[in-house]
């Protein structure tokens, strides 16, 4: 028996999809800026990979576009910040934060979900809106967004908000933090897409239509 279950509100769906081009725009323009002083590496000593190799910049046409990158970055930042703040305000006012913020059982549950998804455990994730792993992921990525706004502001106006830049460890450290938060989004994005594909059409469609067909078989992921 097919039964439609309301899953995501209209506001959440719009803010979610609006965030896709905004985050992409911030990362892309951020790459144009990072190119001008690409000093970070992944790993240690001999095993360090310079971020990013030359072919990477060539492939994505990221070289020599610092001014353009800053112009876009400092325009899109307003929309990215407003969308993020609107989302947080909405989850608070609507009470949806209760589904999203991890609680006492979330950590254990998140661990079970990870083991299950890696095929190391046969215990199915619980069937409710967001399981423990999702709670950590979705709350974490919102905190990362707040971190990006704060670290970004601290390297954009390091004198006017010198107290914040100092708190974050100084101008150079704040830039490092800003960069690695972005790499964090990339990791989130990769796992998110993989999980959405695993979870299937019904789950994906719910993020567009708002409704999920509850057949009682599929657990939600993503």
């Amino acid at each position, binding site marked *: 028996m097919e039964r*439609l279950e309301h899953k995501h509100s209209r506001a959440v769906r719009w803010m979610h999809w609006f965030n896709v081009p905004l985050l992409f725009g911030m990362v892309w323009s951020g790459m144009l800026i990072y190119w001008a002083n690409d000093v970070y590496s992944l790993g240690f000593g001999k095993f360090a990979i310079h971020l990013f190799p030359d072919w990477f910049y060539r492939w994505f046409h990221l070289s020599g576009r610092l*001014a353009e990158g*800053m112009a876009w970055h*400092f*325009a899109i930042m307003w929309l990215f910040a407003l969308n993020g703040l609107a989302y947080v305000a909405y989850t608070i006012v609507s009470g949806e934060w209760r589904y999203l913020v991890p609680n006492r059982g979330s950590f254990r549950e998140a661990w079970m979900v990870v083991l299950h998804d890696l095929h190391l455990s046969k215990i199915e994730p619980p069937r409710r809106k967001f399981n423990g792993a999702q709670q950590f992921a979705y709350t974490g990525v919102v905190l990362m967004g707040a971190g990006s706004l704060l670290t970004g502001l601290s390297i*954009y106006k*390091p*004198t006017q908000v010198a107290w914040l830049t100092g708190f974050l460890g100084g101008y150079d450290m704040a830039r490092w933090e800003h960069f690695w938060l972005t790499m964090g989004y990339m990791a989130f994005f990769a796992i998110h897409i993989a999980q959405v594909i695993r979870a299937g059409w019904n789950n994906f469609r719910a993020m567009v239509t708002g*409704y999920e067909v509850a057949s009682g078989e599929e657990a939600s992921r993503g």
Partner: protein
Amino acid sequence: MSRLTRRSFAVGGVAALLGAGGVAWLANARGQDGIPGPLRKMLEFNEGVAQRLFGPQRLAPEFSPDKIEEPRINGLIGLASVAPTQDWKIRVVGKVDRTIPLAAIEALPSFSMTTQLKCVEGWSRIINWKGARLSDVLAQFGAGSEYIGLSTPSGGTDKSGQPDRYYVGFDRPSALHPQTLLCYEMNGQPLTQDHGAPLRLISAVKYGYKCIKRIGVIELTDHRPPDYWAEQGYDWYAGH
């Protein structure tokens, strides 16, 4: 469900097309100074926000002497020839017209600060600077103006005879900031040619590309002065 799905995807598709169209329009919008016009407008909007929040007495942090770093040479535009360090003169033009010797600036009260010079590329250097406050120079030799333009000496050319000039514009509040100095010493030594001998500007409230080297002309004007890097798509204000 299928009707709902069709409708939702149609709305989403239209929204995505509108968004893509908007971005395409923005990216191809006509502009001057290296970036699309609407993005330049956004930089100017940000400037308005920054100026409203700007605290004229808010100081950039100073560092202890053990934090001082080796300076990094960056930006040699306007420095192609060798500047004579003897008998250097600065022309003050616009609302006044006079020529002042470097000695007159060295005779003003001298200030020292150890601040972090930040490049818009994303690197920084902590340097000790010594010089006169631009506010003192303007009070002594200037006149009230909304903007202050500074440039390397006019008529400068590179080896092949091409014009070689660097120029920046300052809004008045930033120019009058106590940490905006006309410097003649760096890390306890006289400025070298690469760092703008005999006189350069250092502002702790601006990114490095505003910190012009080898100052030959100061212009007092009510119109926004041209700025070398702003003409290449960078923010004119460049305050931080």
